[in-house]
C-alpha cells in the first residue's frame, strides 16, 4: 500500500460524522484497518479478550478473531521484536505498549532494528509497523505513567513520530500511520482520551462530545503524516505544540486575549517545516510548548530550526515552555505540569520583547 502523499487529503465535508472521544476514534481506526487489510495485526498486553486497559481495542478480538487481535506476554522487547519479524514476513503489525513509560525494554528493537531495517537491507526488508502507546501526564500517574519520551524517537533516523490532539485527528493519523510503510511511533496523550484539557485540573474535565474536533467522520479517511494543523490563525506570535498542550495553549491564549497562531504539529518527524516557517515569518515570535522535560527535548530541535530558518524575521528569542528536568513527580504534578501560569509568563516575555 502506498504512503499517502502530502497533497492527497480526503474530502470529508459530506461524510456523516458522530461525536467520539479519542478512545472511540482510535478503536474505530483499528476496526476499519483490521477490516480493510488482512495484514493488519493488533497485539499487546491485555489488548485481546479484555480490550485494553484504556479500552482502545475493545470488541476487536471478538470481531476479528484471536489470530488478528491477541494478548502477549509482558515483554515489550518481545512485542516489538516479534512485530519486526511479522513486518519482515509481510504483515502490518500494530503493537500496543501499555504506557510509553514502559517502551524502554523495546528500545533496542525499535532503534537498532525497526528503524534501520529498510536502510541496512537496501529496501529488501521493511518494518511497516505502528507502535501505539498512551503517553503524557496530568492524570496523577507519577513517575512511570506520565512520561513523554518523544525526543528519544525523533532522534532516531528511520522512525516517524506522531502525536494526535483530537479524536478527528487520532483516527485519520492512526489510519495513515498503519498504512505507512515505515515504522511509526504513535503516542496517544492519555489525559485527553476522554475530553480536551485546558490546564485547570481543579475543574471537572469537559467531555469531547461538544467539541467540534470530536465530530469524527464515519468510515475510512486518512490525514497525511508530516503535515501540521493550524488550530488558530493569528499574528502576534506562533505557538508550536502538540498533544495535550494544544488545548492548554489554546485556552491560555483565549484567556489572555493573545492573537496567537497555534500550530498543532501532529507529526514531529518528519516535521512540517513549511508550516512552521510560514507562520514564524508572519508573526516574528515563536513559543514552543511541550510537556516533556526541557533539556534535549523536541523543543530544542524546534527552536534551533526556527532560529536557523527565520532568524531575520524574529522579533524576540524563541521561548520554550516545558516540563522541568526532573522525573515526573506524583504529589507535585501540577507544580511540574507546564500549565497556564508558565505559558502566560512566556507569552508576556515574548510580547514584551
Amino acid at each position, binding site marked *: 500500500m502506498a504512503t499517502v502523499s502530502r497533497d492527497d487529503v480526503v474530502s470529508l465535508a459530506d461524510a456523516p460524522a458522530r461525536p467520539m472521544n479519542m478512545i472511540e476514534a482510535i478503536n474505530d481506526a483499528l476496526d476499519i484497518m483490521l477490516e480493510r487489510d488482512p495484514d493488519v495485526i493488533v497485539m499487546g498486553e491485555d489488548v485481546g479478550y479484555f480490550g485494553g486497559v484504556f479500552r482502545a481495542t475493545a470488541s476487536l478480538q471478538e470481531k476479528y478473531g484471536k489470530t488478528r487481535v491477541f494478548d502477549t506476554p509482558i*515483554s515489550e522487547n518481545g512485542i516489538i521484536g516479534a512485530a519486526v*519479524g511479522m513486518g519482515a514476513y509481510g504483515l502490518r503489525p500494530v503493537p500496543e505498549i501499555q504506557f510509553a513509560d514502559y517502551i524502554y525494554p523495546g528500545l533496542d528493537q525499535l532503534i537498532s532494528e525497526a528503524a534501520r531495517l529498510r536502510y541496512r537491507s537496501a529496501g529488501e526488508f521493511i518494518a511497516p509497523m505502528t507502535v501505539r502507546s498512551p503517553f503524557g501526564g496530568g492524570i496523577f500517574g507519577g513517575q512511570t505513567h506520565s512520561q513523554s519520551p518523544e525526543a528519544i524517537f525523533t532522534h532516531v533516523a528511520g522512525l516517524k513520530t506522531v502525536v494526535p490532539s483530537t479524536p478527528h485527528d487520532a483516527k485519520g493519523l492512526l489510519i495513515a500511520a498503519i498504512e505507512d510503510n515505515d515504522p511509526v511511533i504513535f503516542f496517544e496523550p492519555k489525559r485527553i482520551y476522554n475530553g480536551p484539557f485546558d490546564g485547570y485540573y481543579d475543574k471537572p474535565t469537559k467531555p469531547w462530545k461538544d467539541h467540534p474536533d470530536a465530530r469524527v467522520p464515519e468510515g475510512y479517511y486518512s490525514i497525511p503524516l508530516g503535515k501540521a494543523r493550524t488550530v488558530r490563525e493569528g499574528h502576534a506570535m506562533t505557538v508550536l505544540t502538540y498533544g495535550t498542550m494544544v488545548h492548554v495553549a489554546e485556552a491560555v491564549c483565549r484567556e489572555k486575549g493573545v492573537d496567537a497562531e497555534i500550530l498543532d504539529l501532529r507529526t514531529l518527524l518528519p516535521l512540517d517545516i513549511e508550516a512552521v516557517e510560514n507562520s514564524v515569518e508572519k508573526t516574528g515570535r515563536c513559543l514552543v510548548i511541550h510537556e516533556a522535560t526541557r533539556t534535549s527535548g523536541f523543543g530544542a530541535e524546534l527552536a534551533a530550526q526556527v532560529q536557523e530558518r527565520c532568524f531575520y524575521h524574529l522579533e524576540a528569542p524563541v521561548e520554550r515552555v516545558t516540563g522541568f528536568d526532573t522525573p515526573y513527580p506524583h504529589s507535585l504534578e501540577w507544580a511540574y505540569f507546564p500549565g497556564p501560569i508558565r505559558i502566560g509568563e512566556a507569552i508576556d516575555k515574548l510580547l514584551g520583547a
Partner: protein
Amino acid sequence: MAKQGEGGGYNRPRLALHVPEPKFRPGDAVDFSHIPVPQAGAQMRPDEACAPSDTNPLCTDLVRVLGDDHQAHGPWDPRLTPDKLRGMLRHMALTRAFDERMYRGQRQGKTSFYMKCTGEEATSVAAAHALASDDMVFPSYRQQGILIARDYPLLEMINQIYSNRGDKLKGRQLPIMYSSRAHSFFTISGNLATQVPQAVGWAMASAIRHDSRIAATWLGEGSTAEGDFHSGMTFAAVYNAPVIFNVINNQWAISSFSGFAGAERTTFAARAIGYGIAGLRIDGNDPLAVYAATRWAADRARSNNGPTLIEHFTYRAEGHSTSDDPSAYRSAQEREEWPLGDPIMRLKQHLIALGEWSEEQQQEMDRALAEQVKAATKEAEKNGILGHGLHHPFHTMFEDVFEELPWHLEEQAEQAIRERQIKWPQ
C-alpha cells in the same frame, strides 16, 4: 545493629563472589578429558510429535551419528545419499576456502573487517541442507555457510565485504552483514540476539497465514544471556511458533569463555526445559547429527508441534574476528585438543569409509574451490575495494532511511554532494 561495612554481622560467615575462570589460559597445557563425549548412535530419537519433556534427557546428552570408525550409527542417522553428503562437504569446504581468502583480503587492506566460521561450518551448512530453501533464516554473523549452501553468488558476498559499487547494500553495512530476501536470508544486525524474537514473529506470521514455511534462527552461546533470547523463547512457547533456535556453543564469546553465559552449571539446550519446548544437544562438528537434528526440529515445527532449541556443541577454532587475537586469552593448544575434531575432516573420512570419496578427490575439490573463490574475488575487485573511490553515489547514503526522502534528508544530501564537489572539483 551489626556494624556496616567490614564483615557485616560479627558472627555471620563471609560471602564470596564467584567469578568464572576458563580452565586454560595462554601457555597452559590443555586437557579436555572433563568433556564427556558419548558413543555415536547411543542417544534415543523420540518421535517428532513427542511431548517437549520427552526430549529432556537429550538436553544434557550429546547426539552423535559419526563414530571414531567414520561410520554413521544409531537412530539419528539421517541416511543421506552419497550425492547429498558430497554436496554438504563441498559447501563446507567452499565456506572454509572463502573464509581463508577474505581473511587475507582484510589483512591486505582490501576491506576493514572479516569474521571466519572455521570449525563451525557444519552448524550452518548441514542445517541449511536440512531446511527448505524458502524457510526464513535469521542468522547471526557467523552463518555464511547458509548463504553458500543456498548458492548465493560469491561475487555478491565479496562486493558486500568490499563495500564497492557492486555491493547491493550500497556500502551501508559493515562487511559480512549480508541480506538476501531472495534466499530467505534475513538482514544481519550488529546487535546481538535481536534476531531471536524477530524469527519468532516471522514464524507466528507464517502460522497466522496458514503458510507452510518455518523460521530458524542462530545465535552464539554468549548471546543467550541477552534479554531477547528470553523473550524469544517465551513467545515461541506461548504461541507454539514454528521456529528452530540454534545456539552455537563454540565455547567463546570474544575473550569470555562460555562460563560467563552460564555454562558452568548446565547446558544451553537445557534452557528449553524451563520454557517447555523441545531441546536437543548435539555434536556440532558432526554434520550428520546437525542435519538430523535440524530435520527433526523442522518436521516438528511444520506439523504444528512447535519450537525446538538445538545446542550445537562446537569450538571457535579461530579468533573472534580480524580485530581479535585469541592467543591473548586462551591456550593455542585448545584447537588441536578439541575432542570433537573438525567437521570437514569428519565428513570427508565418512565418505572415504563409504567408498564414495578419496583423498585425491578432496585435494582436487579444494584446489577447484580455491580457484572459484579467487575468480570471484578478481571479479569483485573490478567493482573496487574499500576506500578506493568506487563506491555508491553520495545520494544513496540518504536513501532508504524512509520510503521517501523527507525534506531534511534532501537538504543534508545536497550538503554532502556540495562537500564532495569542494573536495574533488570536476
